């Protein structure tokens, strides 16, 4: 199947769960094409010309919002950013009212981030346009998983058979959930590792190996994917202190040495340097962190284009 003929069989992108392997591979193939475009001086396409895309962010996120905005603009869409700080949500308007109001403005695509799991599904049921989940609570963040898969694939050739260790706050992480499903669909063996207070119950039912000893989790890994730990969770509520967390679960040179020699390091950002990852590792030769950001734009272009292909033309 070529990227040009790829038909994405879903009206929305609400999560990785429910996507088939061909769905994921189709999106990745489409993203590959965008990378070439993004590296040219002329970065504009017209596949979304005339389309209106709204970025609706109920949770602040500079990088994801910027990435979607750039993706939309490069495809020729008119992009509007709505962040909650400036919206009527602060005045008591409900999520559904906001959705209905925006829907009446006839957008073609809405990108949503919300702090509650399931909020994007709720919104998708109320609008006529295509909805993209840019992160809902601890549920899913599908474009992050796709960009991570793309980054890994470009560096390792294939994801099939790789061992990926996802480390940190698994309980509160939508990135972890989407990545587990996505990487397993593409044939990777996934391990998760974190302090026991940040491992959600039932996580082993995903078919992952579960570790609380990071050294064991990293042993022989091809990819080490670190997750952000929010500062308010380090003050004794989930882990005793930042110092203790870094000592046992922070990625430093010494722990990274236990992984395969050619292991690569990833982080969805924004990083807490010195908390979950040491600066020299984040900036080191094995780090893919900056490439992830580049792939983010490409993947989001691919998703927008795939969904736009399904939109009615009249």
């Amino acid at each position, binding site marked *: 199947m070529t990227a040009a003929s790829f038909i994405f069989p879903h009206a929305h992108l609400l999560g990785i769960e429910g996507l088939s392997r061909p769905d994921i591979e189709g999106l990745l193939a489409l993203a590959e094409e965008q990378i070439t475009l993004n590296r040219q001086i002329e970065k504009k396409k017209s596949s979304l010309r005339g389309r209106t895309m709204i970025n609706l962010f109920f949770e602040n996120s500079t990088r994801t919002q910027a990435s979607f905005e750039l993706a939309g603009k490069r495809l020729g869409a008119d992009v509007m950013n709505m962040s909650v700080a400036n919206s009527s949500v602060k005045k008591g308007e409900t999520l559904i009212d906001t959705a209905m109001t925006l829907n009446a403005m006839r957008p073609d695509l809405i990108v949503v981030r919300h702090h509650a799991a399931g909020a994007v599904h709720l919104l998708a049921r109320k609008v006529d346009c295509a909805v993209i989940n840019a992160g809902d609570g601890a*549920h899913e963040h599908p474009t992050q998983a796709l960009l991570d898969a793309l980054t890994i694939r470009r560096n390792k050739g294939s994801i099939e058979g790789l061992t990926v260790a996802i480390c940190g706050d698994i309980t509160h992480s939508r990135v972890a959930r989407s990545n587990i499903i996505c990487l397993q669909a593409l044939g990777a063996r996934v391990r998760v590792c974190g302090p026991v207070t940040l491992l959600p119950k039932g996580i082993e039912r995903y078919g992952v190996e579960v570790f609380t000893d990071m050294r064991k989790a990293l042993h022989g890994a091809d990819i080490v994917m670190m997750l952000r730990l929010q500062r308010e969770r380090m003050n004794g509520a989930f882990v005793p202190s930042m110092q203790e967390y870094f000592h046992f679960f922070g990625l430093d040179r010494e722990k990274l040495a236990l992984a395969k020699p050619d292991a690569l390091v990833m982080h969805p950002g924004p990083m807490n340097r010195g908390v979950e990852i040491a600066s020299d590792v984040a900036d080191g030769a094995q780090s893919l962190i900056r490439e992830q950001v580049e792939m983010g734009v490409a993947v989001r272009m691919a998703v927008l284009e795939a969904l736009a292909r399904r939109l009615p033309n009249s």
Partner: protein
Amino acid sequence: MTDTVLNHARIIDPVSGKDHLGAVLIRDGLIAEIASKPYPKGEFDSGVVDLKGAIVAPGLVDLRAFIGEPGEEHRETFRSASEAAAAGGVTTIVMQPNTSPAIDEPAVVDFVLRRARDTGLVRIHPAAALTKGLAGKEMTEFGLLKAAGAVAVTDGDRPVRNAQVMRRALAYAAMVGMPVIHHVEDPDLVGEGCATEGEFATRLGLPGVPHAAETIMLERDIRLVKLAGGRYHAGLVSCRESLEVLRRAKEDGLPVTAGVSINHLTLNESDIGGYRTFLKLAPPLRREEERLALVEAVASGLIDVIVSDHNPQDVEQKRLPFAEAAPGAIGLETMLAAGLRLVEAGQITLPRLIAAMSTGPADILGLTAGRLLKGQPADLFVLDPDEPWVVDAATLRSRSKNTPFDEARMSGKVKLTMVAGKIVHSHH
């Protein structure tokens, strides 16, 4: 008043467990006779209703229903709640004190009883607050509340976190002769949780509640009952660990009983599906194994009571992301029909089901309701156990439409409901 004869009735007596064809004679609002055989033609001149084998059973007693009156009449009023109750065969409602103001003073009990008498169709008994303002700190006036007409003390859907408060409340309530009903969920272990902890909640990205949140609170309470005495009822139990605790308490001869909601008997966590907020409950829905164990515990009598846990929530409280939506589901009108699913599945007998919804709760409160007895008020319902119907939220009588059974197929329709011999609901 003329006589009414419910002839050719299949009479279910939950006390004896008997199920026989006969007739019920109602005179002056009382049950004048329960005939063990149908009356022959011509025995009465008028007032004979041929039920053609439909079921007659004592009106149901719902030990746990929330009503929005006073203070939140947009959710539910005595009138709308009693219409829903009557349509569901419920003739006695024990309303929870979580109103605005809370039912924590004799004057509010008095108001509720007068309002319910003037506007309601069924019997409405207030359960008074256990603590002032439902705040879990200071005891209310148990003695005066009882004298005003409250039938139990409870903080409704709020747990009492402080064990010392609970200990003294149990002791004082025992002295006054008031049953204590408690919502057994440890608020710290529940935290932000809104689904049963485990794979399902993890996949949905929802914060989980462990079973232990319930079991620890139940276990604490039972130790306090040993210490302080008191007639104690756990409002809702929902998992196997709690059943074990309950079994031991009963074996020890403690005056402990427990209820379960119809939702936990007929639904499981997977019904939440794609974040259906109408299925957000407290305690949350459990896995199927727990549900089956609960059904078995009702059948065996370990669980004494089935409640509707009727909790009307307006649309604005439910049209929200799952974690932010209010918990609760309406149930007065559908409790019996949903329960009949268990009978149909062969998991429980009809007399036992009805006992858990009538005699069981009445006994806890010391009410004479919940049984068919000569000389007692004719509170009863007539049920066609085979009539199929489909639940339509829009036509349910509650002011709020948050039913977890919307569009569900049911078998068994209440045809007639009487309170003190007066018809409060009829369906043709």
